[in-house]
C-alpha cells in the first residue's frame, strides 16, 4: 500500500497510484459536524478513517509589529458575520481605499515585510509527517488587493487605474515570492506544491476580460510558478467558476494541477475538459459543492464520485476533492459517502 504522499506523487508523475488520492476542504463548522458524526475526536483520526490523503500545510510564524485581533498584517479589519450555523469573516476596513495615486500610497502606507515572519519552525511543522504531501508558499494577491481597496473599487481599478493595480500587485507578489523562497529554503525538497491562485471566474463567465487576465495577472503568476518549478515544487492553481477560455494560457504558464473544476459552471463540462486538457494538466476537485454535496442524497454523491473517476480520472491525472470548502449545510452522510465511494471505486480504476 502506498502512503498518502506516494499516492499524490504517483499522480503528479503520471504513474498509477494504488488508488485515487482524496483531498479534503471544509469550513471549521462542517468539520466539527463531521467529527461528531463519525465519532472521531480529532481531524487526523477522522481523515485516516475516511482514507483522506490530507496535506500538511507549512507557514512561517508572524513576529512583526503587533496586529490587533480583528486585523491582519496589511491593516485590513474584519468582523465575524453569523450565518445561523457558523461564522464567516468579512473585511470591513480597507486601508488603501483612501488613496488615489501610487505616490499617495508610497508616502503613507508601509507594506509588510518578509522579515516580519520567522521561518525557523517550518522543519518542525513537518516532523513525523513524512507520509504526507506538503503544501507551502504560493500567492493569491488580487484577493488581498480587494481587501486593501474594497472589492468594487479594486475591480474598477483594473479598468481605470492599471498603474495602481500593477504597483500594489508587484508589492504583494514580491512579498509572496520572498515568503515562498524562504519556506523552500527551510525544507529543501520537501514542499510538494504551492497554491498559485486567483479567482478569475463566475458561475457563467470570466470575472475579468481575457486581456486583463493576460496582462495583469499571468506574467506575475508566471514568476511564482518559475520559482516553484526551480525548487522542484509543483504548481497548484485554483480558480473558481467558468474559466475554460483561459485554461490553455494556464497550461502554457506551467501549472501542474487545476482546481476546483466546477463542472456545473458554463463551459466546464468534464468530458470536454478531459479530452482537451487531460494530458497537460492534473484535475483536482470536481465534487460539486453547490448542489450535490449540499442538497443531494448519499446516492447522488456516490454517482457523482463514480462519474468523476470515470471521466476526469480516465488514465489517471485526477485527485478527488470537493469543489471548495464543504459548507456546514452539507449533511455528514454525504461527506462520508464521498470518501467511501472514492475509496472503493478509486481502487479499481
Amino acid at each position, binding site marked *: 500500500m502506498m502512503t498518502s504522499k506516494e499516492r499524490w506523487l504517483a499522480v503528479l508523475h503520471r504513474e498509477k497510484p494504488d488508488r485515487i488520492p482524496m483531498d479534503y476542504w471544509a469550513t471549521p463548522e462542517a468539520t466539527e459536524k463531521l467529527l461528531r458524526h463519525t465519532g472521531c475526536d480529532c481531524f487526523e483520526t477522522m481523515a485516516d478513517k475516511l482514507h483522506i490523503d490530507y496535506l500538511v500545510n507549512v507557514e512561517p510564524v508572524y513576529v512583526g509589529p503587533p496586529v490587533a485581533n480583528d486585523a491582519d498584517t496589511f491593516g485590513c479589519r474584519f468582523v465575524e458575520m453569523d450565518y445561523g450555523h457558523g461564522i464567516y469573516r468579512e473585511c470591513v476596513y480597507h486601508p488603501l481605499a483612501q488613496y488615489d495615486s501610487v505616490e499617495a500610497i508610497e508616502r503613507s502606507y508601509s507594506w509588510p515585510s518578509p522579515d516580519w515572519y520567522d521561518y525557523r519552525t517550518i522543519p518542525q511543522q513537518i516532523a513525523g509527517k513524512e507520509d504526507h504531501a506538503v503544501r507551502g508558499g504560493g500567492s493569491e494577491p488580487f484577493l488581498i488587493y480587494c481587501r486593501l481597496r474594497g*472589492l468594487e473599487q479594486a*475591480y*474598477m481599478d483594473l*479598468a481605470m487605474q492599471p498603474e495602481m493595480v500593477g504597483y500594489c500587485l508587484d508589492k504583494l507578489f514580491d512579498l509572496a515570492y520572498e515568503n515562498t523562497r524562504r519556506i523552500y529554503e527551510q525544507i529543501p525538497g520537501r514542499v510538494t506544491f504551492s497554491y498559485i491562485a486567483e479567482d478569475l471566474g*463566475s*458561475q457563467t*463567465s470570466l470575472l475579468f476580460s481575457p486581456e486583463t487576465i493576460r496582462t495583469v495577472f499571468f506574467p506575475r503568476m508566471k514568476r511564482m510558478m518559475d520559482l516553484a518549478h526551480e525548487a522542484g515544487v509543483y504548481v497548484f492553481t485554483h480558480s473558481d467558476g467558468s474559466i475554460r477560455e483561459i485554461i490553455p494560457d494556464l497550461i502554457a504558464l506551467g501549472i501542474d494541477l487545476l482546481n476546483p473544476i466546477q463542472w456545473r459552471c458554463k463551459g466546464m463540462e468534464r468530458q470536454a475538459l478531459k479530452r482537451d486538457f487531460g494530458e497537460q494538466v492534473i484535475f483536482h476537485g470536481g465534487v460539486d459543492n453547490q448542489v450535490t454535496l449540499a442538497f443531494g442524497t448519499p446516492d447522488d454523491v456516490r454517482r457523482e464520485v463514480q462519474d468523476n473517476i470515470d471521466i476526469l480520472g480516465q488514465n489517471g491525472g485526477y485527485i478527488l476533492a470537493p469543489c471548495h470548502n464543504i459548507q456546514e*449545510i452539507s449533511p455528514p452522510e454525504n461527506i462520508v459517502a464521498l470518501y467511501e465511494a472514492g475509496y472503493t471505486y478509486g481502487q479499481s480504476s
Partner: protein
Amino acid sequence: METLEIIRKAIIEGQAKEVEQHVQAALDSGMKATTILYDGLIPAMAEVGRLYEEGEYFVPEMLIAARAMKTGLGLLKPFLVEGNVQPLGKVAIATVQGDLHDIGKNLVSLMLEGAGFEIVDLGVNAEPQKFVDAVQQQQVNVVAMSALLTTTMTRMKDTITALDAAGVRGKVKVIIGGAPITQAYADEIGADGYAPDASQAVNLTKRLLAAS
C-alpha cells in the same frame, strides 16, 4: 454627434466626467430631464447589459459604466423629482443574511436603476426583518434577494415567510438570483421570479410589475 448619442457613448465607455459634463450641458441648453433619462441613460445601460451578456464586457467594465450612469442620474434627479416623474417601481435589494457576495447584487441593482427603477439598497447580510421593514416603511413593490452560498440561500425562504407573517407578502413581488439559484428553487420557495443575470433581472421585474 448629437448630445444624447455622446451621453450614451460616454456611459457605455464608463467616462463619468464626460457624462457629467454633457448631461449638464444638455440641461443648460433646455433639454428635458426625462428625455435625457429615457433616450440617454436608459438605452445606454441596456446596451451595457447586452455587452455583458454577450461576453464583451466583464464586471469591471459594467461597474464603471454604471458609475458613469449614476453621475448623470444624480444631475437629473432634482428635475425628475420636481417634475414628479414616477419611477417604474421601487425595489428593495440585498444579499441575504450571512452572505457578503455582493458583486452580482450590485450589478442587478445598477441595471435596475439604469432601467428606471428606484432602488433601496439594503446592502449585504440582510436579515428577513430588514426586507419587511423596507416593505412596510418605504412602500417598495419588489423585493430582490441575492445569495451565492448554499448555507445562505435558505434565508430567502425565511424572508418570504417573514413577509407573509407581517401580512405584506401580497404587496410585493419577490425575485431571487445568485450563482446557485435556479428557477426550480424559486418555485420551491414561492418566489415570484428568478433571473440568471442582471439584464434578465430587468426584464423579469418589468414583466412582473406589468402583470400585477
